[in-house]
């Protein structure tokens, strides 16, 4: 047993990707076990490893953790990425929850029926540019600091850069009206741990393709 966190999920982004990002930002090495059959998933349930019969699952510090938010919260707390006091925490939580709503739209997008895809894609762009990105653009402009909260890298910054890059994959010019976010993206991308994660060969997963979608459906759907 190595003592490294072990991530159990499909070989793709989905709901595990923010966890990969946060561990990478914290400089924490981890192992991965990729699911590709329904039998493996059913065995996890039978073994009692999945509290609510759902993924993702992260084995960390002797715990079998489920619930993405709980896992991220634990990592953020453990590696000092959660602000210095209750109020900074509250701000980080608000930002993180907002970005999560945006990211959930992106996660679910590949699974939308063909006739809904165009509408959903347009909605992602609309929400990103009218609801979420303006908030962070404003926050960065107002305090003029390098990071969203408390002048220090936090969970919120890591979550935001992940979301920016994910939206850019669909809409390359999405940051054109957001100069603060452009600078933010460059700054955060250049931090050593994040830079390393953005290079080929890192645990970062590519955007979902047909094979990924097929695997997820096969494993999870009876």
């Amino acid at each position, binding site marked *: 047993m190595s003592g490294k966190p072990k991530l159990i999920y499909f070989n793709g982004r989905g709901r595990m990707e923010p966890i990969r990002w946060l561990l990478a930002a914290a400089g924490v090495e981890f192992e991965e076990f990729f699911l590709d059959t329904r039998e493996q998933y059913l065995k996890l349930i039978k073994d009692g490893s999945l*509290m*609510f*019969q759902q993924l993702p699952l992260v084995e960390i*510090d002797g*715990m079998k*953790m*489920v*619930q*993405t*938010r*709980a*896992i991220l*919260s*634990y990592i953020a*707390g*453990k590696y000092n990425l959660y602000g210095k006091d*209750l*109020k900074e*925490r*509250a701000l980080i*939580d*608000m930002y*993180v*929850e*907002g970005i999560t*709503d945006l990211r959930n739209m992106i996660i679910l997008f590949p699974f939308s029926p063909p006739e809904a895809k165009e509408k959903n894609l347009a909605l992602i762009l609309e929400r990103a540019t009218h*609801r*979420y990105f303006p*908030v962070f653009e404003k926050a960065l402009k107002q305090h003029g600091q390098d990071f969203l909260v408390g002048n220090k890298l936090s969970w919120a910054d890591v979550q935001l850069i992940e979301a920016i890059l994910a939206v850019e994959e669909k809409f390359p010019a999405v940051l054109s009206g957001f100069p603060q976010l452009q600078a933010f993206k460059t700054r955060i991308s250049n931090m050593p741990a994040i830079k390393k994660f953005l290079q080929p060969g890192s645990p970062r997963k590519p955007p979902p393709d047909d094979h990924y979608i097929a695997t997820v459906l096969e494993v999870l759907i009876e």
Partner: protein
Amino acid sequence: GSLLFQQVPMVEMDSMKMVQTRGILSYIAAKHNLYRKDLKERALIDMYVGGTDDLMVFFMKLPFLPAEDKEKELAHIIQKATGRYFLADEKVSTGHGQHFLVGNCLSWADVHLLEAILMVEEKKLDVLSAFPRLQAFKANISSIPTIKKFLEPGSQRKPVPGDKYVETVRRVLRMY
């Protein structure tokens, strides 16, 4: 500019305008000792709250479904409650023989679970029939003075969503 992401709920407290239900609950829990200091106990609370939340969100959405989908969806939710969420919670309660989900005193997880149990019972009165530990849990948490008071008529607890509530939400948020 009071609604950070143009969404409700919004709670004004300690000179913040807080949005995002989970963030608000997290702050209240931490401030009032319903969230542990120890990271691992916190993690456990977060896991239970997350699961309970998933269940409650189904209920939240239910009144807004078209009439013809309601019954089917309700059956589906009840099945999730008994086959997934309550099953997990019952196991936990059995595991350590204590009256609370995490540690030896009331936490956010307990309050959240009681709310979920009551919510499901409103639709299916005998939903806890196969879960003796959860029945004991429910009785125990309901009898805590602050909670008991909240469960009495005249408290700030809100009733089951009726047509007027649904209509108001739809109108305000333009959910047509």
